[in-house]
């Protein structure tokens, strides 16, 4: 005889709470970059002419291309979240992979840009900078390397984060449902079958008696095209928030370093 017992599973999620948490973290990032922006503005105010001259060394086209790359990656990020919100996991994957690739492309450009500059002997502490650059120009390049470098570190973190998200939104979610003592009493005397062939193998049948305190049932979900763990959406949204912040910081870095000639 088979007795069916119903049990409800509560899965708590707090969309707004998760977002507030992410925003609080973003505020610390904002203040971190805000600090170096203040440093930049004070030195630019004091050495306006030197900053002017030094900025000629930067490649405007390279900077503009990187801006377009980052803006586009922000678009694909937003589209990826939009696709997941519509339960279209396949499209979300395509856009998420595009975002990651664009982020890598940004870093590749950055590598060539920094590389060219270092080849020309322009890097903090180089002979050229110490001998023929004046104080303000040295400050400009010091700030250039530290600020675009700090931003670059954030891009790397973003790539790692988005790659982890790519795994998370595609992995098959497993859940453990726990039947607490009160509910477990209702099941007393029933048997729990373990494994597919439990009906033919008596050893796999466990009897629930008063020694049982807790019943844990592990359920394996399989993702289909339309159904998957919905709690992943908020995770992807929060990762997107981080990525957009990295974009906003670059939106300010680009004109402040490349376009002040």
């Amino acid at each position, binding site marked *: 005889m088979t007795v069916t017992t119903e049990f409800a599973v509560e899965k708590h999620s707090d969309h707004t709470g998760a977002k*507030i948490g992410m925003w609080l973290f973003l*505020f610390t990032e904002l*203040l971190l970059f805000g600090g170096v922006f203040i440093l930049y503005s004070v030195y630019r105010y004091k050495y306006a002419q030197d900053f002017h001259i030094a900025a000629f060394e930067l490649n405007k086209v390279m900077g503009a291309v990187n801006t377009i790359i980052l803006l586009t990656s922000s678009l694909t990020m937003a589209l990826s979240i939009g696709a997941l919100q519509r339960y279209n996991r396949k499209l979300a994957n395509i856009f998420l992979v595009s975002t990651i690739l664009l982020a890598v492309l940004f870093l590749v450009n950055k590598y060539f840009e920094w590389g060219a500059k270092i080849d020309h002997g322009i890097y903090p502490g180089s002979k050229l900078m110490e001998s023929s650059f004046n104080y303000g120009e040295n400050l400009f390049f010091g700030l250039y390397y530290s600020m675009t470098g700090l931003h670059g570190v954030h891009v790397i973190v973003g790539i790692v984060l988005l790659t982890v998200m790519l795994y998370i939104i595609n992995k098959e979610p497993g859940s453990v449902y726990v039947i607490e003592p009160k509910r477990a009493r209702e099941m007393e005397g029933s048997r729990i079958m373990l494994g597919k062939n439990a009906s033919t193998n008596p050893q796999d049948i466990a009897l629930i008696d008063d020694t049982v305190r807790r019943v844990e049932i592990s359920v394996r979900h399989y993702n289909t095209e339309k159904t998957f763990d919905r709690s992943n959406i908020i995770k992807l949204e929060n990762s997107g928030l981080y990525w957009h912040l990295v974009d906003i910081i670059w939106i300010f870095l680009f004109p402040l370093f490349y376009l002040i000639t």
Partner: protein
Amino acid sequence: MAHQEPEQHIVSYGTYVLVWLGLLVLTGLTVAVAGTDLGNFSVWMAILIAGIKSLLVLFIFMHIRYESQLFTVMILIVLFALVIFISLTFFDVSYR
């Protein structure tokens, strides 16, 4: 089985693409403006355009337009703190 999530505002793909186009146009504008000589004004122009671009990203890409007011208030508090830091720093630097 899981709690039903509160219904979320879903932004159309078209809106995102429009915002992206706007951002590209503004990038072109900031490059173009940098080419002309506006004197001291060019710094403020660059910051103004960057500010508009950030607002576009903030409101649409980062969904602030569709979230509760709480987020706007929190962001304003942080920006206010930054403005205090910047103004106090410049107050110090200018009158030293």
